[in-house]
């Protein structure tokens, strides 16, 4: 057993923590893009499209993220690719995020009172105009707090990439623990790292929600 100072541990965790942040950003950005396309397709599309997207959402929400990661990792091999843990984690987390965001955003569009549609239509706006000028701006306001809130789930989700060998904060913790054997300190620090990333986002989401609620929407 080598001697590790507290600073050694912290430094290594910080270095690995960068990859947690990067992976979170990739998953969230990718998930938002895919999720947006899915949301729009789901709202305007024909029933088979809507049905397929719903199935997609249910599949991702009804199965463990860990399994999704395993499937991305081993599924690529079946298709003949040899993918890195990086790629598998990015793809799985992006799809996972897109499914949840699609569900959240659909809820926001549906939460805009139907009277708004009617008011827009009697003013002579067509479907797209109603959507663009009346419905989406309101839905967007509703969507911000839960979307910020969900980013916390994405960050926490990246911890599972450690299981397929991606070295981020959690994996660095287990590796350090194997070498330094100070589990209590190390995992407390790992938890602290996630807390520092997630807690401000949670607070912000709650703040936004209160503001929205205070504005009398809902």
């Amino acid at each position, binding site marked *: 057993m080598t001697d590790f100072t507290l600073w050694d541990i912290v430094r290594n965790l910080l270095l690995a923590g960068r990859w947690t942040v990067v992976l979170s950003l990739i998953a969230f950005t990718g998930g938002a893009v895919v999720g947006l396309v899915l949301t729009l397709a789901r709202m305007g599309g024909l029933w088979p499209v809507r049905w397929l997207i719903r199935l997609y959402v249910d*599949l991702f929400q*009804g*199965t*463990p*993220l*860990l*399994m*999704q990661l*395993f*499937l991305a*990792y*081993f*599924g690529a*091999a*079946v*298709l*003949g690719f040899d993918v890195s843990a990086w790629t598998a984690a990015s793809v799985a987390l992006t799809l996972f995020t897109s499914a949840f965001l699609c569900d959240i955003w659909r809820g926001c569009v549906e939460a805009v009172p139907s009277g708004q549609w009617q008011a827009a239509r009697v003013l002579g706006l067509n479907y797209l105009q109603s959507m663009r000028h009346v419905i989406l701006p309101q839905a967007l306001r509703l969507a911000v707090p839960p979307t910020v809130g969900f980013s*916390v789930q994405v960050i*926490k*989700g990246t*911890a*599972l990439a*450690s*299981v397929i060998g991606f070295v981020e904060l*959690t994996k660095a*913790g*287990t590796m350090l*623990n194997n070498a330094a054997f*100070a*589990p*209590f300190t190390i*995992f*407390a620090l*790992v*938890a602290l790292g*996630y*807390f520092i990333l*997630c*807690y401000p986002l*949670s607070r912000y989401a709650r703040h936004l929600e209160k503001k929205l609620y205070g504005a009398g929407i809902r």
Partner: protein
Amino acid sequence: MTLDFSTLLPYTDAILEGLVTTVWLTVVTTVAGIALAIVVAYARDGSREGPSGIVSRLLGAYVEVIRNTPFIVQLFFLFFGLPALGVSISATVAALLAMILNLGAYTAEILRAGIDSTLKGQHEAARALGLSRLQSFRHVVLMPAFSRVYPSLISQCIIVMLGSAVVSQISVFDLTYAANFIQSRNFRGFEVYLVVTLIYLLLAVGLRLAFEFVGRRLFAFRQGGSS
């Protein structure tokens, strides 16, 4: 490369064993986690004004820490960290503890939203009738609060069940552990994980149906006629 599921057949026993573990972990967690949440919600709700503000703060911290850290880290902390403090703990106990603490924190928060929303009038009526705070909580506030947040509660229990896949990482022989085990023998990772993922999906559907079945009986009072 083609898919071949036949190599899974010799391992049905392993899958069954894992399935049983996942199911019982989920059932125990659901019951104990909801019980924990009720206690936390009651203590937090009451101690806000009272002299025991410190209790409320501590419970608030517990809820926030759980909600803002990954389950897998909570699990490692309990399983590897506690023995380092001299508290030895088996993998199964660590898994159960982590799951219960996790569900308890989320459910306490869900429940609090249900209590806050519109139950003030009924709580006042109970107080005017002479019920103590605990009596009011138990007889008057709890059931309507649960019925109001029941959909969120169902989702949360499903999330915890799906999240329990992670306990395989501390060698609890659950469904995911079975999958890893089979994969390491037959090297058919994709097929194994596909089948096990489908089993999880069925479990999620089953859990939801069970909850809805119970909910229909528990919350029959909501189906009013005229109003």
